[in-house]
């Protein structure tokens, strides 16, 4: 069994909650008492049907207002795979929560109401999924029961969405006609749509490749800290603790720590389950090296033949997340990249992107809540980086306000995956 992280977005009325409820229910991941509680609450709200949104909306305010505000995580599994589903709101004022859910996901579930076609919200979700580097997009064209399971409706939406996905540089999106309410093509194939010869949603989720391509990337392991026990029986022990984020680390291979540039040989690797000959993402390991080097937290352990860039200025796609301030030229923020922290100063807002028109606006003087732009930052410390489109771990950072300690922005190094023009 392996682990797949999936992100979805939407609001109550497009059927997202019903779809999730259906996935959980049909995969037998809901317990009887949870279902009974939802039935009970549905009755109290005088709802005619089982209100599955009550299942997914966890906070009192969300249930009262009937909207999803924050990311919720749900878990279900089948005999072949465990799924972590980040369930996020779809409204524009919660774009930051959509970004949060998408940041760790490998699959995006994009929900389209067959009656409405490609609307603003599904477009926005597709754009965010692409920007955040999600490789697999599954477009669920839902509520097919309300359009008479009409093949032409499905194909028209699919063709329109395909144009968008080409623009967004998303390869091989999958389109599924479904009715989450009646269970068509969610877990079970649909008898109402014999013209659809693809698999139901769960089958796709079970077979999408996990950690695809990460092992083929150059080796990267941010050092979290150095273990030095100061115990008699481990007198000379020194281990570099960290999680491998890409590539493969082999015992005996030459490595270089960046940005300091010091080289050595990996003389031993301890995985959580014991000493190993090789380790790969996402293993949390402790590495022993041949030489006595002065390296610690904030260094990036790399393969010597394919090194990251070392920079003191960085251009990145930044999504602003703070509702109490805006990003402006000249502002200073703390930056956290892998395990390295420092300060950063905004030296330019090059372009502000419009998620709606997919156009870029030159000469904007600020980024406000939920706005995304290409920004140049000057750094107080050298960072060893890769472009986000090549490596999500060494290409990402967060900005933290020095005044409030809040996480104010998500940053993706380099140009976006598609061009805004």
């Amino acid at each position, binding site marked *: 069994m392996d682990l797949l992280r999936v992100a979805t977005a939407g609001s109550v009325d497009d059927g997202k909650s019903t779809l999730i409820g259906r996935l959980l229910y049909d995969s037998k991941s809901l317990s009887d008492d949870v279902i009974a509680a939802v039935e009970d609450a549905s009755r109290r709200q005088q709802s005619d049907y089982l209100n599955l949104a009550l299942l997914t909306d966890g906070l009192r305010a969300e249930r009262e207002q009937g909207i999803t505000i924050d990311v919720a995580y749900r878990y279900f*599994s089948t005999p072949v795979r465990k799924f972590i589903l980040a369930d996020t709101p779809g409204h524009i004022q919660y774009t930051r929560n959509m970004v949060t859910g998408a940041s760790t996901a490998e699959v995006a579930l994009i929900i389209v109401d067959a009656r409405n076609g490609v609307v603003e919200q599904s477009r926005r979700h597709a754009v965010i999924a692409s920007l955040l580097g999600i490789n697999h997009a599954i477009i669920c064209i839902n509520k097919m029961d309300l359009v008479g399971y009409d093949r032409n409706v499905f194909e028209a939406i699919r063709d329109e969405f395909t144009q968008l996905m080409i623009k967004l540089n998303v390869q091989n999106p999958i389109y599924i006609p479904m009715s989450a309410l009646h269970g068509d093509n969610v877990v079970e194939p649909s008898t109402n749509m014999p013209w659809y010869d693809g698999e139901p949603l769960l089958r796709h989720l079970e077979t999408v490749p996990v950690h695809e391509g990460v092992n083929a990337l150059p080796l990267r392991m941010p050092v979290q800290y150095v*273990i030095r*026990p100061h115990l008699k029986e481990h007198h000379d022990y020194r281990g570099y603790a960290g999680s491998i984020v890409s590539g493969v680390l082999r015992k005996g291979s030459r490595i270089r720590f960046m940005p300091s540039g010091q080289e050595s040989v990996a003389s031993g690797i301890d995985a959580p389950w014991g000493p190993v000959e090789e380790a790969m993402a996402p293993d949390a390991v402790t590495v022993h090296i041949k030489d006595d080097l002065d390296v610690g937290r904030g260094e990036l352990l790399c393969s010597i033949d394919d090194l990251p860039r070392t920079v003191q200025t960085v251009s990145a796609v930044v999504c602003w997340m703070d509702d109490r301030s805006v990003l402006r030229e000249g502002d200073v923020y703390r930056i956290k990249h892998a395990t390295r922290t420092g300060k950063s100063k905004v030296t330019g807002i090059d372009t502000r992107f419009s998620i709606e028109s997919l156009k870029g606006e030159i000469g904007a003087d600020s980024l406000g809540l939920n706005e995304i732009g290409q920004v140049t930052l000057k750094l107080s410390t050298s960072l060893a980086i890769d472009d986000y489109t090549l490596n999500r771990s060494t290409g990402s950072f967060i900005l933290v306000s020095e005044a409030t300690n809040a996480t104010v922005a998500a940053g993706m190094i380099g140009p976006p995956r598609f061009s805004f023009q």
Partner: protein
Amino acid sequence: MTNQVNSTLLVSESKHLRDLESESLHIIREVIAEFDRPALLFSGGKDSAVLLHLALKAIRPAPLPFPVVHIDTGHNFPEVIAFRNRVVDKLGVELVVGSVDEAIGTGFIRGPATENGSRNRLQTPVLLETIRRGRYTAVFGGARRDEERARAKERIYSLRDEFGQWDPRNQRPELWNLYNGSIDPGQHMRVFPISNWTELDIWRYIAEEEIDLPEVYYAHDRAVFERDGMLMAVSNVMQPAPGEEIVHRNVRFRTVGDMTSTAAVASEARTPEAVIAETLTTRISERGATRADDRTADAAMEDRKREGYF
């Protein structure tokens, strides 16, 4: 019951457990690197036993560089206290106890009118006072998001203000695995490294890693009585009301909290593998089966958490 379960599920090919384990180790290591005074909440329950096991792995062969903190409700299962002492002695870790009995004795908090009342709410001020006295800046907890819907919304790094309160409407975005540990003086961070584990993951890990647990997690003969459809253990703090009949049953506990609000389930599972088999076929959630405290209201957990609860 056991032989109905597909055996391939039991001998799980455990790649997903390894990934969860690595994620947890990453989180624990970030906290050790970035916070000056961490502590680990240890209830003696299975989730905190797994959490402690992971913390030791994260820094081995070095010893645990922070204390484990137990908030003793005075309503604990004796087996759980014995387990706590056994683990602390064996591992040589520092134990800090915050006692609800003592807090009632000194008048720091007022006890409920009846001895049978749950002390769940009373734990919160004692927990916050223990954190304040220890000047802990990061406190590890073993909460899981699959337990309860308010928890499904909580971050892995969850900020508490100087009153220990959680503000669910104003949580920091949590991106990639880049955790923001910045706090002001007086605030502290609750950190939940096993957020993404389910009850089944916990049991599979306990089986694979042979993690020691209190005996009450496995089927044993016990005097119980039925209340509100739940099996409650007879103890010095929990006696049947008139009309409630004491019977002997083979039971185990799926969680081990306050004895007055933690119910048993009928079970024959005497090993972790047998518990996994039962968990795979059960139709009742962990808290739904056994936690009287969460049945009181739709938002019972959210309300307790806002005040500073675990």
